[in-house]
Structure formats: structure tokens, C-alpha cells
């Protein structure tokens, strides 16, 4: 039984399609919705919570229909039995930590004993024991985040929705919290739907990732599938460091696919073949620039796809360095761990060879 089922959900805000016929199912675990701001991921989350009413479609949680515009079903948010962690945390400033967490339990008419036991157990779980009489303003950002989580967990929902819950924390704390958040959700054993625009966060935390743009789902898969086998140029560009160039499939050779790239002085690149590819297809060639190698000293023997280029500048970033290499009419930003020497020849830049391993390339048909 899927914990969440969304069928044909659409929502238009003044000519802008925030959600364009979204359908997906999700059994259990942690699923992330990843996309740039304005892609519709938050609208989808709010529609699932019942805070937003879509223009069309059906949303079911644990096989119970919550929203069905066609049949006029609209379960109010207070009856959906879900958890929701807001981007701003939305802790009620006039209530103590205890009262914030106890709020939903009180509305469910639990006994005082039970409320106390549950609140304390949940605060214990999130590591906030001893803080129950504080007010939200007396807590740090990370602690406020935990209270927001505890407030939802205390109600023991089967599904918890998280709307960019870490975006208000500083970078270091964010990395700590996402690991902890994952552990906690797994420990409690509930399902979670997580909205974020940060691909690292999405990949670390989730079992499945959904990439969205302009109200549409572009790809739904495991983090590994999304990163290594993007099905859409946007997905490739949005997750990780990738360069995109236009190409055309020359031929398929068993496991390999030969693609002609006009921008690289018309070079042919070897890449892994997929079932979707056929000779003559126009395509986008996605190159993972972190896996591209630079050989300024001479032709790298035995490497795949060796191209010749001019290194025009370098940006040193500490652990990594971005090298700008002009290949034909295309500038490739190659990120590597070591700083490559750059010997300028007649002011244009330094001549270098670039090799792209075939596993660092994916080819997406564009028709």
C-alpha cells in the first residue's frame, strides 16, 4: 500500500502553472522533491497537507482519499493526521517548548498524563530534554528546528512533510542536521516527504528523489539514478557539476555510442549506449566536469575522448580548482583536486589536452 498517491494534480496561479498534471506514488521511506525555487515543489507539499487546494487531481494518504477535486472531496488539514515542518519552523512564540509540542495532543483530547509522557519522550528523542520550559526565542536555530520536528513527531503521524527545513541554518549545522534528521526519521519508522533545492541534501537524506521544474516531474529515481543517468538535460544541469553540449548520434557500437559534437570542433565522443539512442538522433551530451582530466604535459595515452584545448584561466578554491578550458567554441569548466600548471603561449592561454572518460558522459535524446 503506497503511503502517498498523487494523481493528475494541477494548480494554476494567475497564468503560471505551479503544478502541471503531477502523478506519482510512494511506498515508504524518505522521498525528496528537488528543484529550483518556483518549480512547484512547495505548492505540491502544501496541496498534500491540504493548505492549498489544487485545481484538479486526487491525493490519497495511506489509501484514504484526502483531496479529490473531481469528486469534491477536501479533507481539511486538521483531519489529515500528518506532520508538517515549516521552513520558518512556525513555532508559536507565546508558548513554551512543552506547549508547542503538546498543542496537537491537547486538541486530540489526550489525558494530561499521556500528554506529559509523550511530550517528554519526543523531546528526549530529538535531544531537547530539560528545555521544555523555554520559549522558542530562547533557543538556537538548530534547537528550534528540533522543536518543530518534535511537534509533528509527538502526534505519531504516518507521513511527515518537511518544507526546506534546514534552509535557515548555517552551512555547517545544516550538514550535521541532515544526517541526524535522516537517522531520526528512520528510527521512528515513519515516511517523510522532503522538499529542498539543495541536491546534496536531497541525495544524503532520501531513498528516492523527484526532480521538478516548471510544475512538472522530470525524473523520479534513486539518488544514484538521478546523478548518473539523468533522463532530462535540466536534471543533468541541476544536480552536480555538468556541462551540456549539443550533439548527434553517429552510430551505436554494442555498449558504446558515438556522438558527434560540432562545438568541440566536430569531435566524435564515445559514450555509454542506452536503449533510447539510435543513429541520427539529436541529443544533449552531459559531461560530469569533476571527472574530466587535464593533461597539460602531453597526450594522455589510452584515455577516452581526448580533446585539445586552451586553458584561459584558473580559479583556485582551496581543495578544488576550476580550470577554464576553451575547446572549439565551447568553454568547459574542469574542476580538479590539483592545480594544473598554466604556461601561457602568446597570451591566449596554455595548450592542454582534456580527456573525458566514457562513464562521465550521458547522452539524452532531444529529438
Amino acid at each position: 500500500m503506497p503511503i502517498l498517491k498523487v494523481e493528475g494534480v494541477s494548480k494554476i496561479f494567475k497564468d503560471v502553472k505551479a503544478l502541471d498534471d503531477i502523478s506519482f506514488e510512494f511506498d515508504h521511506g524518505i522521498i525528496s522533491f528537488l528543484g529550483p525555487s518556483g518549480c512547484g515543489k512547495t505548492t505540491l507539499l502544501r496541496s498534500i497537507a491540504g493548505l492549498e487546494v489544487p485545481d484538479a487531481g486526487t491525493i490519497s494518504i495511506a489509501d484514504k482519499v484526502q483531496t479529490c477535486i473531481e469528486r469534491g472531496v477536501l479533507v481539511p488539514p486538521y483531519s489529515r493526521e500528518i506532520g508538517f515542518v515549516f521552513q520558518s519552523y512556525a513555532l508559536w512564540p507565546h508558548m513554551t517548548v512543552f506547549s508547542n509540542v503538546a498543542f496537537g495532543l491537547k486538541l486530540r483530547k489526550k489525558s494530561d498524563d499521556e500528554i506529559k509522557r509523550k511530550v517528554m519522550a519526543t523531546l528526549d528523542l530529538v535531544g531537547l530534554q530539560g528545555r521544555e520550559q523555554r520559549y522558542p526565542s530562547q533557543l538556537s536555530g538548530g534547537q528550534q528546528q528540533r522543536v518543530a520536528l518534535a511537534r509533528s513527531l509527538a502526534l505519531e503521524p504516518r507521513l511527515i512533510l518537511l518544507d526546506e527545513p534546514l534552509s535557515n541554518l548555517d552551512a555547517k549545522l545544516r550538514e550535521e542536521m541532515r544526517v541526524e534528521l535522516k537517522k531520526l526519521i528512520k528510527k521512528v519508522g515513519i515516511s517523510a516527504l522532503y522538499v529542498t533545492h539543495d541536491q546534496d541534501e536531497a541525495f544524503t537524506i532520501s531513498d528516492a528523489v523527484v526532480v521538478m521544474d516548471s510544475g512538472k516531474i522530470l525524473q523520479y529515481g534513486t539518488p544514484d539514478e538521478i546523478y548518473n543517468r539523468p533522463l532530462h538535460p535540466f536534471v543533468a544541469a541541476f544536480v552536480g557539476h555538468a556541462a551540456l553540449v549539443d550533439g548527434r548520434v553517429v552510430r551505436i557500437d554494442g555498449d558504446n555510442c558515438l556522438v558527434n559534437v560540432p562545438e568541440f570542433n566536430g569531435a566524435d565522443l564515445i559514450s555509454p549506449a542506452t536503449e533510447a539512442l539510435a543513429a541520427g538522433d539529436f541529443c544533449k551530451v552531459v559531461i560530469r566536469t569533476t571527472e574530466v582530466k587535464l593533461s597539460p604535459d602531453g597526450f594522455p595515452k589510452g584515455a577516452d575522448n581526448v580533446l585539445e584545448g586552451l586553458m584561459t584561466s584558473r580559479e583556485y578554491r582551496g581543495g578544488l580548482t576550476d580550470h577554464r578550458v576553451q575547446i572549439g567554441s565551447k568553454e568547459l569548466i574542469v574542476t580538479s583536486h590539483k592545480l594544473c600548471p598554466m604556461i601561457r603561449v602568446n597570451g591566449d592561454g596554455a595548450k592542454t589536452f582534456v580527456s573525458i572518460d566514457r562513464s562521465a558522459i550521458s547522452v539524452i535524446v532531444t529529438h
Partner: protein
Amino acid sequence: MPLVASAVAGAAIMTPVLVVMWRSFTSGKLGFSVGLNLANYLRVFGDKDIFSMLSNSVIYAAGSALLGTVLGAFLAWIVARTNTPGKALVELLPLYPILMPPIMKNIAWILLLAPRSGILNGMLQHFFGIETLVFNAFTMAGMVWVFGLACVPLGYLFLLPVFLSFDPSLEESAYIAGSKPVNTMFKITFPLAIPAFTSALVLNFLRGLRSFETPVLQGTPGNIKVFVSRVYDSMALEFNAGLATAYSVVLVVLSIITLYFYIRATRFSERYATITGKGYRVKVIDIGAWKYLTFATVVLYFLAGIVLPFIVLIVVSMIPYFDYDTFMQFPSNAVLTNYYTVMRHPSFVTGLYNSLFLSVTIAIVTVFLGIVMAFTIYRTRAAGTKVFEFIGTLPLAFPPLVLSVGLLIIFIGTPLYNSLWALGIGLFVAYFPYAFRNASGAIVNIHKELDEAAWVHGARWRHVFFKITLPILKPSVGGALFYIFIEAIRNVDVAVLLTAPGKEYGPVTLFEYFRVGQWAEAAAGGVIYLIILIVAVSVAKFAFKMKFSL
């Protein structure tokens, strides 16, 4: 449920507004109306005084607004940005309009400036032998002076935050560019304060158009007619509802035009956005020898604008009767007879009780319904909320006197006529927009996710309203309750047409005393109100920790 409450409040507001509009197109005396015609408007625009009335209204409102706003802005600048000695005297300014009801200001200044019996002319004659009557409260200049002083606090309150929370880097970058402090003041600081200044100016102009006490107490005796006094005369003296409503409509049109400019001015000021959330510490500038001039301004304003009226009121309330010689004999002739007289006078005692009872009740009712209506508009998916937004703000375009004209026309012939309910409804309609706008501003500022977090964790609208919205609004609720209580307890312009024998309203009683020449009793009654207001301020300050300075 919240929708029903909002609808009731909306209906209470719309009825007098529509009645004024409709009644202005019919003729006949109070209680009757005949046919649908333009007779009233023909009389209004056929009146040979219409142009002088129009120019009087505009000169009076513009003159007071200009005097008050310029002085207020100047004082704000002195307090915020200069090293003027004694500027602490001005920091009490926000408290002054709270303690001094408008009617008491007029009474005090008339006692000072009256041509024959006035204290200042008497002093000129007595000490300097000047026989000419230099001062005259019953002239345009007298009106502008008294109402202009009443406009100072608003100018001060609008400009002070601008000068205080001004981003210092705006001035610092001018210094870097080579501009000296005085030049920077004129080229950077003052121009950036223009939007706030314009807002205060236009708002003071609007207050001038609507003001009742000064035109009736000072303008009418000096035969200077403005629209408000003409509406009052048509209704209270000629009992001609058609004419009163026609004059009202002209006044409303003027108010709406002014409001339009006010809205434009405030929109414009947002673009300047010099005030940010950051708590800047602005630099105080050493203005050198100029500080003697600013010091003189501060002291003069403090004495003439604030202290003098208080002293005059207190002294006059404690002398047997008012004339110049008796006034000058104080304190050897101090008596408390005026206090005995007013406290034994049924019209004052009932009025005092009614004003206390009604202003407490009205404050609670308007603030609660204002929050309910704002909650309905901004926090529920109820239909037609735009309409409520419009209705809730509408009475701002209607001078309070005009609203009570409308209500009086409705009440005649019903059991509400001459009842305490009539007064209560009038005050409700006049003060509801303030409560509503205050609540809207506060509710819009509460992050919507706080409500939504309650929805998804199991709360229904009543839980959200009583457990989240209301508790978070607590600080602004306190302020709104206090403000409406203070405004209502000294109201004259709504109550003046709705009082009846046995259903008096305190400030209106004082207004009547003054009109029939019982000046010393009026002063004594005024001092009693002053004491009530001081108690209210102290309670607010100490029991509810309310702040009265910025």
C-alpha cells in the same frame, strides 16, 4: 461564525453611510423625507457663502497642517539629531495629546485669546497699557494657531522614527563624497524625510477638514464658516436633515480626495524605505551656536504649547467665575465651588458615567470585532472578504459628525432614538476602522505559517483564533484598547448629535457649558477628565507596561 460577526459590523457601518447619501437627495424636515430631488444641492451650491466656506475650510485645514507638521518635524529633528540642551522636554510630547482632550485645548486657548475677556489681551492692557485687542481667538489666525498646535504631535511622531532609524551609511557616503554635515543635512537627510513629512501633512489636513470643536467654538462666534460647522448648524439648529446631508456629501468628497493623496503619499514613502529592521544608532550632530535657537524653540513650544493651557485650565477651574481680574487674583481667591457645582449637576454626572461606561465597552467591542474581521479577511477562505476590507476602512472617509448625522436620521422614530444604544452605535461606527486597521496590520505581520502549523496539527478555526492569533496579538490589542478608550472618552463630534436629556455624554456637556458661558464650570469638568486620563495612562504604563515614548 467569524463571517457572521463581520457581516453585522459591516452592516452597522454601511447603513449610516448609505442613509447620508440617499437623504441628501430628498427634501423635508427631520423625520420626513419627500421625493427624490436635487433641492438640497441647489441650495448648497446656490448659497452665496459656498466659496468663502470652501476657501475657509481649505485655508483652515492647510494652515493648521502646515504649522503643526513643520513644527513637529523640526522638533523631531532636534530630538533625534542635534545636541540641543533640554530636548528631554520634547520627548514627553507623545503623551500630551493623550492627556489633553481637544475640547479642553479650545477652552484653554479661548480663555487666553478671547478679544475682550481674554487673559493675554488683559495682560497687555494691564502691564503695557496697550488698548488694542491684539489677540482674537475668533479669527482664522486663532483657529489655525489652536488646531495647528494640535497637529504638532502627529508631525513629530511621523518624523521621529525617520530621523532615528535613518541608515547612517546614506549620510556617511555623502561625507566620503566630500559633503559637510550641514550640506549633508539639507541634501540627503531632509529630502529623504519628505515622504514621511508629506504623509503627516496630508493626514493633518484631513484631520483639519473633519475637526469639529475649533470651527464651532472659535469659527462660529467669529462668523468664519467651514463645512463641518455648517453641517452642525443645519442639523442641530435648523433641523434640516436634507441640507445637512448635502453639505456632508460635499465634505465627504473633499475627504476622499484628501485620502487619495494620503494613500499616494504613503505608497511613495515605501519606495524610499530608509527605515529598515536594523537598529541603527544615528549620530547626534553638533550644530554649534544654532543650538541656542533650537533650545529656544524647545522651551517656547513646551511652555506655550503644553504648559500654558494646563495652567489656565487648572486656575480657571478654581476661581469663582472667569474674568481677567478674578483670574489675576489667584491663588488668594481659590475655591472648589466649581467642582461641587459640576459634580452635583445631573447632566455632568450622568455624562461622566456614560462616557466611562461607553468608552470601555466600545473599546472592547470594536477591538474584538476588528480582530474577527481582519482574521476573516486574511486568515480564512471565506468569500467576499475584499468587500469587508473596503467597508472596514470606509468610515475613515466620513467625518464623525457626518456619521452621526446619518445615524440620527435612522434612529428618529425608532426605540433607539434618545437611547444610550444610539450613542454606543455612533461611537462604534466612528472607531471601528481604527480597531480594524490596527488588527489588520498586526495580523498581516504574523507569519502565516504559524496558523498553518496549527491547522496541520489538528486545530480548527476557533482553536487557531483563540489559541494562536489572539495570544500573539496581545501587545497590539492592549494598545488598541487604550487608544480607542482614550479617543472615545473625550469624543464630542459623534456624541454631540446623539445625546438626549438623561443620556448625556461628558465631553458634550462641557461643550454645552462652554457655549452658554459657564466657563469656570467647563474648566472644572475638564480637569476632572484630565485626572481620569492621568489615571488611565498610569494604569496603562504600570499595570500593562505600555510605552508612551518611542
